[in-house]
């Protein structure tokens, strides 16, 4: 049996082409390739070489259209025992090829060729072609055909000429042979013919047969000579004779020849009639071959191979899609027949042919099946060459079984990739990816490839097969089998040169995990060329990922875009998985980038059995342009492979669909990962890069609540590009804690050249901790760190950019290099400092002494001011300075502070009075000195701080309030009171706020830090509750004075409003003596704007609180009226009532004035909180002390 047979094979002249004299194989293949192109030589072209020696037996030779066909047998072939039966099996010509430079001695070449030609006894023409002879060789006389060195075209032309010459010689030899055969000289035998001595009857039969056989052979030669008509004539004769003699074998042979002649004659036509004819005749050929089967020598030789060959020839002839069924039947029959073939190599050939024909038919799976049969036959031969063949054959099947090596299926993959890149894959295409998961078959095929590769000593193929097997079918392989494959990989790698690459990845599985966000230090911001503040809108500033307002702008900017900068290292996270039962040592793994503008840094990883790992791969972009990362290059098991993310991704998709065996990552316990969209990465030219650090350490700044501190931030340009623009802004929480940023310093330092550094001072004021923070701090004790994590610290955002364009190109101006954003988190850790417990407003009245000496200055000033403009607010303050209360009503704001920290605090309270320009406010100035005393609060102690409010009480609780209120009621009764109340309230609030804002509680801690306590709210709460009492003056105020000494004084009595009241107290003390008539006067002042009628009573009490004016034991005598003094007090005026007292006993007495208001109006009633109209309204003055000295 021979491979590659077809019906036309019978018309081909077999020419052996052999290498002569050590020609290098590569050159031999080259020269032979040149020769092979001349497989068909037209008769017309050889006519010049042809000389008719005698009358040609090929009378009907088509000189115009016919041709001779050659079948070049490279390397020659042994003679076939069947060459008498089919003349086309004979080697009819021998061509030797030699390369002169490699064999200088032409004579020895000639000798070698002569020796070689001995083995080809059937050859009719011998030629030896010598290529590239030297000059000396050219001159030598030899039988060799020398091809002088020339260009390829010339050589080919020469070669063509020589082939035509050979063709002509052969034709002449054929004529000679046919003439000789016709004369009946030769005996034609086949191995089929009985070796036993022939009986007489058989001898006669044999003679008749001989004639038929001779005719068939002549027909063969006619066919070879390219004369189908002649051939057909001889075949017809032969058929007739063979039929008569029952020589079925030769009958079938002649029939085959006749079909071939028919086809040659009708070259190129394929009408159905011809087809039917061929089919019909071949059926009979097959039948007759079958008939010629002789039982007795079946063990030795059998015509079966001819039958199968004929079947295959017919199948090849019919091999078209439309006739698939017939072809399949034929091939199935051939396959059936093959198993009874004696010779294993014949069976091999049959299977090869069947596989090829199925392949031609488009039945890839069938073809693969028979290819695998071929491979198995090869593997049975157990030698290296057979193993190589087996491997190659199996490699061809991999496509049908879908286990092909990546190297051989590259174009397919590429197509898939572009498709997938478009976006989401359709379900259909996912399925198509996992189509034909015949895992059992695939594993078997791969195992066979591995076996054959190992046998044939092809480590790379073995490695690749083992890798594919391991990677795709690890779940189906036992741990022992996995270990075996791992060692197969290792063994193969040992025999491979270092750095071998293989298209098929083994383990581990690699998938893209994520692209870590650029650290906030290096953020890249697209510049908006249209606006000066180009950073606006470039980054989400709010707490929400999506804001409808920014949506419109940013819709065009792809979120998935990633910008890398030349020269700045980047990182990509990938996840590796080793689902197998052995340890995988990845010698190196790095990102594979095909765009050649990226330097990847390899790392090595060790993956324990059944484990997965996320690792960081880094690299540096080197050139601008787009970067695509399709996968990783892995050096593992001694071979370098490229692992594509896409493959694993597809596999994972398949796993979710249940189409793939298993998910390698999940089986390793890796977390489920949403598929990562690979962003478009582009590399931009170098950008400036600012590096910041906080001077004095980057750790968080620990501040107590309210502490103020300056922080220095140093900015350095760490890139090669100067910073030309920079802008500082704030973001994050607690932005108001940044009191000031000296952005001018930065501005003035621009452009910041590479390497330059600038320091920016930032003033921080620690914020108040919220309730939550306090709780957390309280429970944890040490809140450090937590605060930072909370992200409650403010951040400095510095947007900066390099030069706009480097070159002056007009076009590039529009394309701005992006700017950057530097985020400097001001890591402020706020500790709870002094904590506020509560605030209270305390009021205290110190009775005044009835005396004569008063600080006149105050009185005068006050009076003057009052008189000048009583309606003006500012003046009112002074007018209404509470002289008429007759006592020093002292009010304190008491703050209770506790110190839960571990250091000592010292607090000082100050009231910042913004001093009104036109005011000569000595007392006001005095009050500021209140800040001087410091209160020390030890750790874990609570302390109270008193803030005296007296000083600023009057300026605030001025008469204007009351005045306004009374005005409203008095002058414009028609107005709604609600309006006035509102305005009153508003004014009240405003004044309270004003007051509060002036109170500052400063502290200094033991750590030498200082700050301010923010307790405004607390104070406000405290004040609000008692505001009415504090703020509203009584409608009437009373005062006492010694009348006799006041004559030279002003008529008014005023209570001192100095803070140095101690002195006043003493001064006013000692002027009343017992047993003397002491004239006194009581002053009643109307604080409203309407006349008030009152009934005034004056009471004097002794130390025990007994009324000492009236009753049995009165110790004080009096003159004048003390009770029921009715008087009318004009608005904002005062009335004096004089009386005298005679103290019998020295000591301390208290004077009290009280009045019953008649016809009280609404305001008064409201002030007194009277419920009904009938209720009498009392107004009582504060007690005045009288110190009565003894006479002695």
């Amino acid at each position, binding site marked *: 049996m021979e491979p590659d047979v077809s019906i036309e094979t019978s018309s081909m002249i077999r020419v052996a082409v052999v290498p002569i004299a050590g020609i290098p194989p590569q050159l031999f293949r080259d020269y032979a390739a040149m020769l092979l192109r001349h497989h068909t030589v037209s008769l017309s072209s050889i006519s010049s070489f042809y000389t008719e020696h005698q009358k040609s037996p090929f009378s009907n030779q088509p000189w115009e259209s016919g041709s001779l066909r050659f079948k070049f047998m490279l390397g020659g072939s042994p003679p076939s025992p069947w060459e008498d039966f089919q003349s086309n099996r004979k080697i009819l010509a021998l061509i030797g090829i030699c390369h002169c430079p490699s064999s200088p001695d032409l004579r020895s070449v000639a000798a070698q060729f002569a020796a070689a030609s001995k083995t080809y006894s059937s050859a009719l023409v011998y030629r030896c072609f010598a290529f590239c002879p030297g000059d000396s060789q050219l001159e030598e006389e030899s039988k060799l055909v020398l091809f002088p060195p020339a260009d390829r075209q010339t050589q080919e032309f020469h070669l063509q000429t020589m082939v035509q010459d050979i063709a002509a010689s052969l034709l002449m030899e054929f004529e000679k042979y046919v003439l000789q055969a016709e004369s009946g000289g030769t005996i034609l035998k086949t191995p089929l013919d009985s070796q036993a001595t022939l009986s007489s009857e058989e001898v006669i039969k044999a003679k008749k047969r001989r004639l038929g056989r001779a005719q068939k052979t002549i027909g063969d030669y006619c066919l070879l000579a390219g004369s189908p008509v002649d051939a057909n004539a001889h075949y017809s004769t032969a058929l007739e004779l063979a039929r008569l003699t029952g020589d079925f074998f030769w009958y079938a042979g002649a029939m085959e020849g006749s079909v071939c002649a028919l086809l040659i004659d009708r070259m190129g036509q394929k009408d159905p009639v011809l087809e039917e004819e061929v089919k019909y005749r071949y059926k009979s050929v097959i039948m007759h071959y079958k008939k010629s089967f002789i039982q007795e020598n079946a063990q030795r030789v059998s015509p079966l191979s001819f039958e199968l060959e004929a079947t295959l020839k017919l199948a090849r002839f019919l091999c078209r899609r439309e006739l698939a069924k017939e072809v399949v039947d034929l091939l199935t029959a051939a396959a059936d027949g093959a198993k009874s073939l004696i010779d294993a190599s014949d069976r091999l050939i049959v299977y090869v042919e069947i596989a090829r024909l199925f392949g031609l038919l488009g039945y*890839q799976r*069938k073809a693969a*099946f028979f290819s695998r049969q071929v491979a198995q036959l090869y593997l049975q031969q157990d030698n290296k060459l057979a193993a190589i063949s087996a491997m190659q054959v199996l490699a061809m099947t991999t496509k049908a079984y879908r286990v092909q090596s990546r190297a051989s299926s590259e174009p397919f993959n590429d197509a898939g990739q572009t498709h997938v890149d478009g976006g989401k894959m359709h379900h259909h295409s996912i399925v*198509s990816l*996992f*189509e034909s998961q*015949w895992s059992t*078959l695939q594993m078997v095929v791969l195992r066979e490839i591995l076996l054959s590769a190992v046998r044939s000593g092809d480590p790379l193929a073995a490695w690749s097969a083992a890798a594919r097997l391991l990677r795709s079918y690890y779940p189906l392989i036992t741990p022992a089998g996995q270990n075996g494959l791992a060692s197969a990989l290792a063994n193969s790698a040992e025999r491979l040169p270092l750095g071998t690459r293989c298209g098929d990845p083994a383990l581990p599985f690699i998938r893209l995990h994520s692209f870590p966000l650029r650290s906030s230090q290096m953020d890249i911001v697209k510049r908006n060329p249209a606006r000066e503040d180009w950073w606006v809108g470039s980054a989400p500033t709010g707490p929400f990922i999506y804001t409808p307002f920014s949506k419109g702008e940013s819709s065009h900017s792809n979120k998935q875009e990633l910008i890398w900068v030349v020269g700045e290292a980047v990182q990509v996270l990938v996840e590796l998985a080793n689902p197998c039962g052995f340890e995988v040592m990845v010698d190196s793994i790095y990102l594979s980038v095909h765009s050649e503008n990226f330097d990847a840094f390899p790392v090595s990883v060790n993956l324990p059995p059944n484990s997965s790992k996320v690792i960081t791969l880094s690299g540096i972009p080197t050139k601008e342009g787009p970067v695509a990362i399709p996968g990783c290059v892995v050096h593992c098991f001694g071979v370098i492979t490229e692992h594509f993310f896409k493959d694993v991704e597809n596999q994972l998709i398949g796993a979710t669909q*249940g189409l793939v065996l298993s998910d390698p990552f999940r089986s390793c316990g890796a977390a489920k990962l949403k598929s990562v969209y690979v962003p478009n990465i582009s590399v931009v030219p170098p950008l400036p890069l600012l590096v910041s650090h906080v001077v004095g350490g980057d750790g968080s700044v620990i501040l107590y609540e309210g502490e103020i501190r300056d922080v220095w931030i140093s900015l350095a340009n760490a890139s090669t590009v100067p910073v030309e623009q920079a802008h500082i802004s704030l973001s994050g929480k607690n932005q108001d804690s940044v009191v000031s940023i000296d952005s001018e310093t930065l501005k003035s330092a621009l452009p910041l050249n590479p390497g330059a550094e600038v320091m920016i001072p930032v003033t921080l004021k620690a914020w108040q901790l919220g309730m939550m923070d306090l709780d957390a701090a309280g429970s944890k004790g040490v809140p450090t760190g937590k605060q930072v994590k909370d992200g409650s610290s403010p951040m400095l955002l510095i947007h900066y950019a390099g030069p706009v364009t480097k070159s002056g190109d007009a076009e590039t101006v529009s394309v701005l290099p992006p700017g950057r954003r530097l985020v400097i988190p001001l890591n402020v850790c706020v500790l709870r400092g002094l904590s506020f417990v509560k605030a209270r407003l305390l009021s205290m009245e110190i009775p005044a002494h009835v005396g004569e000496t008063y600080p006149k200055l105050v009185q005068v000033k006050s009076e003057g001011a009052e008189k000048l403009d009583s309606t003006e607010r500012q003046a009112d303050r002074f007018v209404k300075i509470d002289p008429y209360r007759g006592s020093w009503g002292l009010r304190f704001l008491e703050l209770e502070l506790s110190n839960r920290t571990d250091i000592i605090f010292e607090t000082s309270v100050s009231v910042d009075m913004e001093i009104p320009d036109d005011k000569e406010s000595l007392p006001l100035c005095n009050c500021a000195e209140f800040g001087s005393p410091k209160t020390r609060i030890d750790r874990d102690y609570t302390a109270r701080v008193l803030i005296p409010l007296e000083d600023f009480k009057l300026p605030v609780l001025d008469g204007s309030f009351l005045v306004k209120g009374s005005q409203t009621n008095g002058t414009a009764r028609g107005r709604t009171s609600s309006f006035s109340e509102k305005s009153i309230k508003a004014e009240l609030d405003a004044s309270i706020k004003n007051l509060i804002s002036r109170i500052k509680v400063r502290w200094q801690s033991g750590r030498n830090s200082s700050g301010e306590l923010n307790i405004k709210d607390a104070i406000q709460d405290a004040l609000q509750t008692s505001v009415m009492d504090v703020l509203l003056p009584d409608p009437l105020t009373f005062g006492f004075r010694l009348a006799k000494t006041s004559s030279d004084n002003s008529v008014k009595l005023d209570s001192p409003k100095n803070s140095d009241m101690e002195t006043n107290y003493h001064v006013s003390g000692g002027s009343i003596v017992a047993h003397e008539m002491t004239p006194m006067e009581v002053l009643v002042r109307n604080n409203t704007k309407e006349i008030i009628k009152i009934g005034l009573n004056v009471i004097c009490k002794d130390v025990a609180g007994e009324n000492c004016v009236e009753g049995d034991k009165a110790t004080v005598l009096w003159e004048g009226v003390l009770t029921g003094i009715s008087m009318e007090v004009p608005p904002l005026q005062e009335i004096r009532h004089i009386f005298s007292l005679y103290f019998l006993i020295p000591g301390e007495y208290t004077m009290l004035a009280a009045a019953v208001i008649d016809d009280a109006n609404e305001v008064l009633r409201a002030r007194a909180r009277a419920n009904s109209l009938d209720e009498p309204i009392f107004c009582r003055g504060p007690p005045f002390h009288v110190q009565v000295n003894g006479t002695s």
Partner: protein
Amino acid sequence: MASTACFMIVSKNDIPIYEAEVGTVPKKEDAAHQHQFILHAALDIVQDSAWSTSAMFLKGIDRFNDLAVSVYVTAVIHTRLMLLHDSRNDDGIKSFFQEVHELYIKTLLNPLYLPGSRITSSHFDTKVRALARKYL
């Protein structure tokens, strides 16, 4: 008499969704592979033949050595029930196919079964093997 039979169900994507060695010949690993190889190869022919006939049962459509392949093509989603067998009991095979087809349809009716995915139901497996014993 020991018989060889290998039954497979192949989905329309040419993926085997069920496979069972239902013969009485003692199992051999190699043989099982070979059976699958033959069935896999036969798909090429089934693919063509299925469209040339209206019959669902394609008897002895392919063969290799002594083993013949009979196929039953379901009408709806082009699922192929393939049997590799060495017996010539055509009627039995036909009945077997019909019964398995019914079973398969019941499986399809399961709302949790995704058409085209593997049939992993042990109940199905038991039933198929029982049918094989009955008919083959």
